[in-house]
């Protein structure tokens, strides 16, 4: 039966080529535009660390003075050195790391490579195990290196390829800002998108090339990059950030179960109240403890242009679908005579309805395939754009499946009304007209 219907569908589609072509094109364009923007949206709002991000939390405190204070105001986005160190030393989570970003002049030993700026992450030992960072060679550092301000560095695989041709470079020396560092690890393929742990370097920006202990970076007065928010008489000297009234550090903590989260929350609240009582925090104690997804939502990481495009494309798809409904209606009504004959010969309304719906499904499938090709073209175009996130615009299996489901369901829905109208023709009238 199904093959017979399919055969009928193809015959009918072939009969009015122009109309079929228009329908397929409308569906394909709508689906193509829609899937391109939805894929970009899907990629950008993806989970940076699947399986891990649910248990990673970002504590926020409010150490600012009363200037600009209003009840209900959100606490500061980052931590000051004092609070960061206090939370780090408290060790209340399974793992925790304090970090910030920077730029370090890198002076390669190879004379054929000019010195360049390397994006750097200054952090503490738990960064690697907590974020599940894979290593190609060597490993990260431990608490001892943090304490001793050791001149050790972990490099990205790209940097390793650039400087050492991808060889195992563990133990070799890297010159950063006129100081010698010992390479102790080379990362594997690691790139969580968005760059959730520090959004101030660009949420989809290029990734760090060197990772070194936070204590060492302060020791060598390495340049801090990213957001620096000061109040009171803060600001000023970049070498004395430890004492300044500024927030410039990110702190992440791993909490494995709801009980741990609850107890960390109360620890944080007590800490803030203590600081308020002692006079260090002028504002009433307000804390936040967001996990990765909540933090990304709060910071509205997905560019609003991307969401706007998705809305626009959705509107466009609706225009295309309405268009298809109209054309489909024209097509089915044109066949009123044929349908009348079939009804007269004993076909039930349900059978006709099913057959017409199948026909629109076929249009949807062909439109979907074409739309998929258009989406690939669209994504290729997106990747040619200069924005940070452009390179990430690739279709994955989820979106591939979604394309077909959306195309077929949308077209079947579009076929519903015309099919219903068409199978309600009165057979007698049609036969008479013949």
């Amino acid at each position, binding site marked *: 039966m199904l093959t017979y219907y399919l055969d009928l569908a193809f015959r009918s589609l072939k009969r009015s080529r*122009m*109309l079929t072509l*228009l329908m397929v*094109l*409308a569906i394909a*364009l*709508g689906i193509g*535009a829609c899937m391109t923007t939805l894929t970009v949206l899907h990629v950008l709002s993806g989970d940076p660390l699947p399986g891990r991000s649910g248990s990673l939390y970002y504590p926020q405190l409010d150490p600012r*003075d009363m*200037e*600009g204070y209003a009840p209900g105001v959100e606490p500061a986005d980052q931590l000051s050195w004092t609070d960061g160190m206090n939370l780090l030393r408290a060790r209340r989570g399974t793992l925790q790391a304090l970090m910030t970003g920077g*730029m370090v*002049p890198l*002076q390669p030993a190879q004379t054929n490579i*000019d*010195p*360049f*700026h390397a994006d750097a992450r200054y952090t503490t030992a738990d960064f690697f195990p907590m974020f599940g960072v894979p290593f190609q060679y060597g490993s990260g550092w431990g608490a001892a290196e943090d304490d001793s301000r050791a001149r050790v560095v972990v490099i990205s695989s790209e940097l390793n390829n650039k400087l050492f041709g991808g060889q195992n470079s563990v133990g070799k020396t890297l010159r950063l*800002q*006129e100081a010698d560092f010992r390479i102790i690890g080379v990362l594997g393929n690691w790139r969580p998108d968005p760059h959730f742990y520090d959004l101030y370097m660009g949420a989809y920006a290029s990734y760090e090339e060197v990772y070194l202990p936070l204590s060492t970076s302060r020791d060598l007065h390495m340049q801090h990059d990213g957001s620096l928010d000061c*109040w*009171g008489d803060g*600001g*000023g*000297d*970049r*070498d004395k950030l430890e004492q300044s009234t500024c927030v410039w550090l990110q702190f992440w903590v791993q909490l494995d179960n709801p009980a741990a989260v609850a107890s960390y929350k109360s620890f944080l609240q007590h800490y803030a109240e203590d600081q308020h009582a002692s006079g260090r925090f002028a504002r009433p104690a307000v804390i936040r403890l967001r996990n990765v997804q909540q933090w990304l939502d709060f910071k509205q990481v997905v560019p*609003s*242009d991307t*969401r*706007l*495009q998705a809305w*626009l*494309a959705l*509107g*466009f798809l*609706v*225009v*295309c679908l*309405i*268009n298809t*409904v*109209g*054309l489909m*209606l*024209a*097509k089915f*009504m*044109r066949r009123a005579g044929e349908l009348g004959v079939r009804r007269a010969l004993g076909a039930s309304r349900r059978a006709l309805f099913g057959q017409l719906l199948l026909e629109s499904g076929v249009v949807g499938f062909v439109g979907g395939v074409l739309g998929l090709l258009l989406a690939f073209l669209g994504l290729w175009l997106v990747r040619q*754009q*200069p*924005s940070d996130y452009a390179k990430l615009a690739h279709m994955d299996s989820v979106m591939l499946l979604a394309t077909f489901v959306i195309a077929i369901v949308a077209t079947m829905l579009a076929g519903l*009304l015309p099919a219903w*109208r068409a199978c309600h023709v009165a057979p007698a009238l049609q036969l008479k*007209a*013949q």
Partner: protein
Amino acid sequence: MEIRPIFASLRKHRIPTLLIVLQIALACAVLCNAVFMISKRVSDIRLPNAIDEQEISVVDIQGTDPLQAASETSRNLAALRGIGGVEAVSVVHTMPLSQHNWGWSFGLSMDSVLSDEHNTNVTLYFVNQDFEKVLGTRLLQGRYFNSSEYADSTIGGGALPHTHVVVITDTLARQLWPDQPALGKTLYSKPNYYTVVGVVADVLRPDVYTSNRDKSYDDVFLPLSPDEVLHAYILRSAPMDRDRVIREAVAKLQQLSPQAVVEGVTYTSMREKYFANMRSMVWILVLVCVVMLAVTAFGIVGLTSFWVGQRRRQIGIRRAIGATRGDILNYFRTENFLLSSAGVLLGMLLAFGINLYLMRHYELDRMPWYYLPGGALALWVIGQLAVIGPAMRAASVPPVVATQSN
């Protein structure tokens, strides 16, 4: 043209009628909003910037020894001046549209502090001697800095230079002192204070504010003697010399400071990079508009053709009893005009609604009223163009059809 029969016929085909009206309405709504977004972005990309963009090159050097900055700067400037075709050289901290902003906020009363809410947030441009010759800024009032003001101004790891003179932009001057001359007035940020000695035509900030255009011009120029924060060397040359000048300048600075990181670009490419995302968004919007209008037109062609096919006999009869070809043509064109009118009426309401939604969620401005009739006109024209083909076919139905049985 009698329109009652058209209404009667449309009433008989309620669903196709509704579909066409809906499609035109949606297309009109999306079109108005998309064109509005396009025009907003195009005008952002074209934001005026009162410097001679075509003639400027920027060579950035970083990773040098901060303690040597003073002596190295004059050495570097001298070296760059020696390059053939270079008309002027200076060194600054950051450039308009470079995305590297050094922000501060000033008040107008003596006890203003940085965090005062009523302060005006501005960009600080630290500049060295001859910056105006390289950038080509246009002085509107007062003067630029003299050499002793440059020499006396140091920053020493702090956030603000130790000087008491500033040059500000025209927009900032009007904002701070709406009805008075700005010259001689003072900006405060305890314990620092600065007297305005000059006003220049509007120069953009390192980042523009698309939601509030005037904010994009709030700059304060401060003189500064050579310091590690001055690391962007700017060179002026004829546009055709720029590439060579940059090449030679990078080579020269790299040779003088082998350990440093040296990068050079033309100012025009800096500007292009800043607006690249906006530009690609414009193209995406244009593409969506064009394709959507095409789809709408094809939809109208398809449905009208279907109607023409259905009514061949009626048309034949009308022709047989005296209707001219023109009458038939007019019938379909009027019908399309009525459908389009209903569509654009609904569409304008929808466009307005979408604009309200976007204003609330995406910080968009209110759409000027003329976008609505503009979009309506576009869809009317497209409807009329799309209907011509099927209507011509209808008009060419011979009267003899009336006598044939289907």
